[in-house]
C-alpha cells in the first residue's frame, strides 16, 4: 500500500475509534449532571447512586476519549501535511478554539469533579459537572465546524493556492455545521440513552438490589432516546437537504441513484451489486417520489444521478489528476468521482437502521418493565445488551458514510461554493515514507485494540458490580458530606 492508502486507513481507524468514546461522553455527562442536580435538589439517595454509578462509567470512558483525541490533533500535521498547509489559515482556528475555550474547561473541571466530592461545597461541585458537560458540547461544536468546512468550504478566498480565511463567523455559522451539530448531539444522546436503558434493564433482569435506581435509569433513558431519535430524524433530514445541494454526488451514491430521476424514488433496500456505477444488477425496493421529497420538500423535483453527475464533475475539476510527483501513481490518471458505492449506500442505511433499532429497543424494554414487571427469559438479557451496541454502530456508520462519501475530495467543491477552494485527498497527504505511516498505523491499531479490551473489561466489571461497586457503605445521601473532615484532602483516589 502507498502512503495515501495507509494514511486513510490510519485516519479512519483512529477517528472511528475515537468516536466510540466521544458520543457516550457527551451524552452521559449531561445526563449525569442532570442526575446530580436531582440529588442536590431532592437529597434522594437514589439519585446519588445514579450519579455515582453512571459517573464512574463516564470516567472510564472519558479517559479513552481524551487520549485518543490527542492523536487526532497531531495527525493532520503528521500524515496530512499538504492538507494542513492548504487549509491551515481556516482549519486550525476552530481546533485551537476547541482547545482554548472548551477542552481546558473539560479537563480542569472534570479533575475538580472527580477529586472534589466531599471537598467542594455541594453546589460548587455540581457546577463543576455542568461546566464539564457543557464544555464537551462546545468541543463538539468547534470540531464539527472544522469538519463541516471540509464538507462545505465557506468564509474563505483562494490566495496563492491556499485557502485564506475571510470570515470566521461564516465558518462557525456554516449551515452545514448548524445541521451537523444537532445531529451529532442527538446521536450522542441516543448512545447515552441506550447505554442507560440496556444496562439498567439488565440489572433489573438479574434482580440485583437497588431496583428503584435501575427503574429510574430505564425511564430516563427511554425518554431521552425518544427525544434523541426525533431530533436525529429532523436534523438528518436537514442535513440530507443540504447534501443534495452541496454534495450531489454523495447523495446520489447514498441512494445508488444512477440515472437522474424525476420524481425520484427512495431506495430502502437493494438486492444485487451496488458496486457498479451503471447499476445494472441492482433491484431496489423503493418508495416512489420520496427521494424528491427528501431533497427539495416536494414530490416532483428532479434528482441528479451518478451518470449525469460524472461529466459535470469532470468538466469542473478535470477528467485526470494533474501530473504531479506528489500524487504518486495517481499522477495523470483518470479521476474516479464516484465514492465507494457499497460503503456509502450501505453506510447510509445502516446508520438509519441501527438508530431506529436503538430507539425501538428502548421503547420495547421500557414497555416490558412497566409497573414493576421484569421478563424472565434469557432473550431479554440479549435484548438489553444488544440495544446498548446499536447506536454506537449507527454513529460509526454515519461517520463512515459522511467521510467516505466525499471522496475523492478531502475538501469538497460545492456547486456555488468558493472558486478553487477544494482539494483531492490524494494531494493532501504528507511526503512521508510508507514505512513511517505503516509503523504508526500498526502501532496505533495494536494499542487501540489492547485498550479496547481493557475498557470493555473495566466497564463490564463496574456494570456487574452495580451500585455496591461505587458506593462503599450504605449511608444515606445526606450524611455523605457530614463524613468529610478538615483533613480529608482526597476522598477519591486513583
Amino acid at each position, binding site marked *: 500500500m502507498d502512503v495515501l492508502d495507509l494514511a486513510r486507513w490510519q485516519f479512519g481507524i483512529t477517528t472511528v475509534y475515537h468516536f466510540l468514546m466521544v458520543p457516550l461522553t457527551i451524552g452521559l455527562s449531561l445526563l449525569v449532571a442532570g442526575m446530580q442536580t436531582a440529588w442536590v435538589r431532592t437529597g434522594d439517595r437514589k439519585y446519588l447512586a445514579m450519579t455515582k454509578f453512571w459517573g464512574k462509567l463516564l470516567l472510564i470512558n472519558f479517559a479513552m476519549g481524551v487520549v485518543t483525541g490527542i492523536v487526532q490533533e497531531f495527525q493532520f500535521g*503528521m500524515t496530512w501535511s499538504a492538507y494542513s498547509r492548504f487549509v491551515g489559515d481556516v482549519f486550525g482556528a476552530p481546533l485551537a478554539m476547541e482547545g482554548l475555550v472548551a477542552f481546558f474547561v473539560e479537563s480542569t473541571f472534570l479533575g475538580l469533579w472527580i477529586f472534589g466530592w466531599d471537598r467542594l461545597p455541594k453546589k460548587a461541585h455540581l457546577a463543576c459537572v455542568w461546566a464539564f458537560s457543557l464544555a464537551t458540547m462546545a468541543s463538539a461544536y468547534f470540531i464539527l465546524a472544522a469538519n463541516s468546512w471540509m464538507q462545505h468550504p465557506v468564509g474563505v478566498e483562494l490566495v496563492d493556492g491556499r485557502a485564506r480565511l475571510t470570515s470566521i463567523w461564516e465558518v462557525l455559522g456554516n449551515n452545514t455545521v448548524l445541521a451537523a451539530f444537532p445531529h451529532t448531539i442527538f446521536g450522542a444522546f441516543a448512545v447515552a440513552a441506550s447505554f442507560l436503558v440496556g444496562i439498567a434493564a439488565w440489572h433489573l433482569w438479574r434482580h440485583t438490589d437497588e431496583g428503584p435506581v435501575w427503574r429510574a435509569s430505564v425511564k430516563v433513558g427511554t425518554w431521552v432516546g425518544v427525544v434523541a431519535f426525533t431530533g436525529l430524524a429532523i436534523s438528518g433530514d436537514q442535513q440530507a437537504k443540504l447534501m443534495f445541494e452541496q454534495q450531489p454526488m454523495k447523495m446520489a451514491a447514498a441512494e445508488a441513484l444512477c440515472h437522474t430521476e424525476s420524481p425520484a424514488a427512495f431506495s430502502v433496500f437493494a438486492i444485487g451489486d451496488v458496486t457498479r456505477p451503471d447499476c445494472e444488477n441492482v433491484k431496489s425496493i423503493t418508495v416512489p417520489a420520496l427521494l424528491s421529497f427528501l431533497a427539495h420538500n416536494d414530490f416532483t423535483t428532479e434528482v441528479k444521478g451518478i451518470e449525469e453527475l460524472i461529466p459535470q464533475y469532470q468538466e469542473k475539476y478535470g477528467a485526470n489528476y494533474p501530473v504531479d510527483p506528489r500524487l504518486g501513481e495517481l499522477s495523470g490518471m483518470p479521476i474516479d468521482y464516484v465514492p465507494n458505492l457499497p460503503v456509502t449506500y450501505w453506510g447510509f442505511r445502516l446508520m438509519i437502521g441501527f438508530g431506529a433499532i436503538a430507539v425501538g429497543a428502548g421503547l420495547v424494554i421500557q414497555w416490558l418493565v412497566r409497573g414493576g414487571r421484569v421478563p424472565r427469559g434469557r432473550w431479554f438479557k440479549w435484548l438489553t445488551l444488544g440495544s446498548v451496541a446499536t447506536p454506537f454502530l449507527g454513529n460509526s456508520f454515519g461517520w463512515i458514510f459522511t467521510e467516505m462519501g466525499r471522496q475523492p475530495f478531502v475538501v469538497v467543491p460545492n456547486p456555488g461554493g468558493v472558486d478553487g477552494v477544494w482539494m483531492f485527498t490524494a494531494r493532501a497527504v504528507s511526503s512521508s515514507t510508507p514505512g513511517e505511516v505503516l509503523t504508526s498505523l500498526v502501532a496505533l491499531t495494536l494499542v487501540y485494540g489492547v485498550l479496547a479490551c481493557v475498557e470493555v473489561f473495566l466497564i463490564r466489571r463496574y456494570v456487574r458490580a452495580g451500585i455496591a461497586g461505587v458506593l462503599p457503605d450504605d449511608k444515606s445521601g445526606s450524611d455523605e458530606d457530614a463524613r468529610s473532615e478538615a483533613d480529608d484532602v482526597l476522598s477519591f483516589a486513583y
Partner: protein
Amino acid sequence: METFWFCVIALLWLGYLFLEGFDFGVGMLLPVLGRSDDERRVLINTIGPVWDGNEVWLLVAVGATFAAFPAWYAALLSSVYLPLVLFLLALIGRGVAFEYRGKVDSARWRRVWDAVIVAGSWTAALGVGLLLSATVFGMPLDAAGDRVGSPFASIRWETLLGAVAVAGYAFVHGAVFLSLKTEGEVRERARALALRVAPFALLPLLVLLLTVQLRFGSTWTWGASIVVALAAFGAYGRLVLRREGQAFALMGVTVAAAVAALFGALYPDVLPSTLDPAWSLTVAGAASSPYTLTVMTWVAAFGTPAVLVYQGWTYWVFRKRVGTRHIPRVHVP
C-alpha cells in the same frame, strides 16, 4: 502580529513545560519515591486533579501552531514522524494508566499500570525535548517544507541532548514539586533526592542552552541563559533551606528563562532548514493571514485569562499537602 503569535506559542510551551513538567517528573519518580502502595497513591494523587488540565497546554500549543503557523505545524509534525508516534503512544498509555490503575484492586494490575506510567512519563518527557530541540536546531527541509532524507533525520546528537535536557529538568522539577506537595517520609525523600540529583540532572539543560547560544545566540538570549543558571542555583539553595515553595517557583523561573532563550534564539525562524537557510520557515513566511491572527488574538484575549483563573482555582482547592493518612481504603468491585 506574527511575532506576537510566536510569543504566544512560546508562552504556551512554557505553560506546558512548567505544568506537565512536574507531572512527568512525578510519573518518573513513582518507583523511586513510592515504596509502598499507599505512597505511590500519594504521589499520583498530588497530580490527580491537575495532570489532564496540564496536558491541554500541549494540545493548545499545537493547535495554536496549526492556526497561526500552519506551515510550521505541517513541516515539524511530518518531519519528526516516528518519534512523535512514540510520544503519542506514551501520552496515551500514561493517561489511561492514571485513570485505570485504581479501578481494580490487584497488585498485579497496579504493577502493570505503574510500569506504563513510568515508561510513559520518561518517553513523553524525552519526546517533548526532542520535538523542541528539533525545532530550534532545525530539520533537513526542502523548499516545500518537506523533510529530505531518512525517517530518523530528527535523531541527532543535538536533539538527543534536548531530549535528555527536558527529561532531566522534569525529573528534578517533579522531585521539588513532591517535596512541596507531600508530607512525612515521602516529602523528606523527595527533597533529599532532588538535592542529590539536581546537579547532574539539570546539567544537560545548561549544555543545551550553551550549544544553542554558541550557534544562534544574541545578547539577550545569553542573558536569559544566565538567568536559567542562576535560577537553578537559587532553587537548589532554597531547597537546602527547606523553602520548597520558593524552590518550586524558581524552577518556574528556570524553565521560563530557558524557553525564552530557546525561542529567542530561534526567532525570526520557526523551523530552520539545515540544508539551505533560504528554505527555513520564518515567522513571516509560515504565518496565517493577518485576519486569522486577529481572530485568534481575540479568542486568546478572552480565553487565556479564564483558563489561568480556573486552573489557578484548581491548584488552590487542592493546595494541601498529601500524605498516606489521606489515602482512603481501596474500594473497587
